[in-house]
């Protein structure tokens, strides 16, 4: 029975001791220790969330990059297409112009030739007229030397030259 009867003295001292111990340890040990532990845990948590955020940002950047890349690709495609169109247009334009010019040249050459030709013809006609006149002059002068002959000739010429 002695063993299970709490002793007043010991109860008193245990209460006092525990109270004192609690206040000393709470103030000088648990507060700084738990403070340091909590602070550390907080900083670890912060670091982790910061890392997570950085990862997310990286992910965003990556997707942004991809978007930009895709856009660039599209733009390139567009530019290339445009360039090709322009090229073909230039080529066809040039072709058209060339043919047009060639045609014009041919046309003008043709008219020039025509003009030259008609001029040549005119000159030829003149020369032929002159020549015939000269011949006629000479013949006339000669023919007129004898009358019969002249008449005969004139008759001959008149016969030969059909009037129309």
């Amino acid at each position, binding site marked *: 029975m*002695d*063993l*299970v*009867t*709490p*002793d*007043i*003295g*010991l*109860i*008193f*001292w*245990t*209460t006092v*001791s*525990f109270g*004192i*111990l*609690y206040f*000393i*340890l*709470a103030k*000088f*040990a*648990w*507060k*700084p*220790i*738990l403070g*340091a*532990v909590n*602070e*550390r845990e907080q*900083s670890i948590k912060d670091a982790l969330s910061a890392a997570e955020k950085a990862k997310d940002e990286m992910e965003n950047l990556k997707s942004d990059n991809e978007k930009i890349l895709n856009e660039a690709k599209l733009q390139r495609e567009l530019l290339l297409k445009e360039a090709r169109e322009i090229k073909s247009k230039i080529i066809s334009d040039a072709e058209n112009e060339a043919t047009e010019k060639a045609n014009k040249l041919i046309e003008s050459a043709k008219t020039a030739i025509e003009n030259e030709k008609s001029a040549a013809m005119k000159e030829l006609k003149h020369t032929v007229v002159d020549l015939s006149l000269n011949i006629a002059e000479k013949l006339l002068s000669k023919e007129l030397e004898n009358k019969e002959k002249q008449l005969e000739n004139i008759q001959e010429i008149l016969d030969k030259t059909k009037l129309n």
Partner: protein
Amino acid sequence: MLLRFSGIFTLIFFTLFSANIFANPAGNSDDNKEFDVNEMIMHHIKDAHEFHIMDIDGHAVSFPLPIILWTDNGLVTFLSSKFNHDDSGKVVVDINGQFFVKYHEKIFYADNANGDKYISYDETGNVANKKPLDLSITKMVFSMFLSMLLLVLIFVATAKTYSKSRKGEPTGLGKFTEPLILFIKDEVALPMIGEKHYQRYMPFLLTLFFFIWINNVMGLIPFFPFSANLSGNIAFTFVLAAITFIITTVVANKDYWKHIFWMPGIPVPMKLFLAPIEFLGIFIKPISLMIRLFANISAGHIIILSLISLIFIFKSIWLAPASLFFSVFISLIEVLVVAIQAYIFTMLSALYIGSAIEEHEH
């Protein structure tokens, strides 16, 4: 490292403990007396007014402790050495006209009526003398002060190591003590009390755990200035359990009381039936705390002492190896048990506090 330490520790344990027991019967005035195992064990696990270290040639060598009495005439203090190691009420100490005797580690007013016998008994054989209020610094109180000193030294030193570290990481002693602190935080306080309130009770739980544990361990170390069976003393466990009880009762919210006196969610007859049971539970919980620690630690001491005593019971030195082997074995288990008991006490205290402030959702 731990293994080597416990090896040395057990070696010291048994050399000293055995010496103590060998010497103890010789310390009694009657050398022919049969060795009383029960008395020896009870003497070891109970409190004392002086710290017995050993006996040399039949003379007790002990550390005298102050005796503090609140008597009819006020405060009286003197050293326990005045009793001259007497524990049978034969030596009277006279302080300013008041006479005291010590009988079975209790201080009585000396009864002068019976001539040279200072102790008188009533019909049932109990001591009839009047007792002053005994607030002495006994062996256990001394041990408790020592444990407080050690705890303050250890943990204030731990706290200081954090100021040396740059990022709040533990250095030096903190590397050893921080895992223990984190254990109480993560395995006891957080799951039992919950994220919201646990920080408020951390200082209490930490103080409780380390106070019990260090006193348990000090009780296992068998030589001066340790070996006091403080945590196996009912007064000690009573106070700690009472503190838990008071905290639980004071901080308890409405839900807690409602769950005790008018349990929601069950029919009225069951409510009426459960209320007295739950009401008793308020007291049974701390009482179970008190008895569990007291019984476990005392039992550990009793088993080890009994195993050692086998040698004296059988009066054969040849039994010593077996006796020692089992004592070592039990001692190793005890090292584990004292840590577990400190943990259980803390864990259950946290659980009771947690259940008192728990917020129910219904």
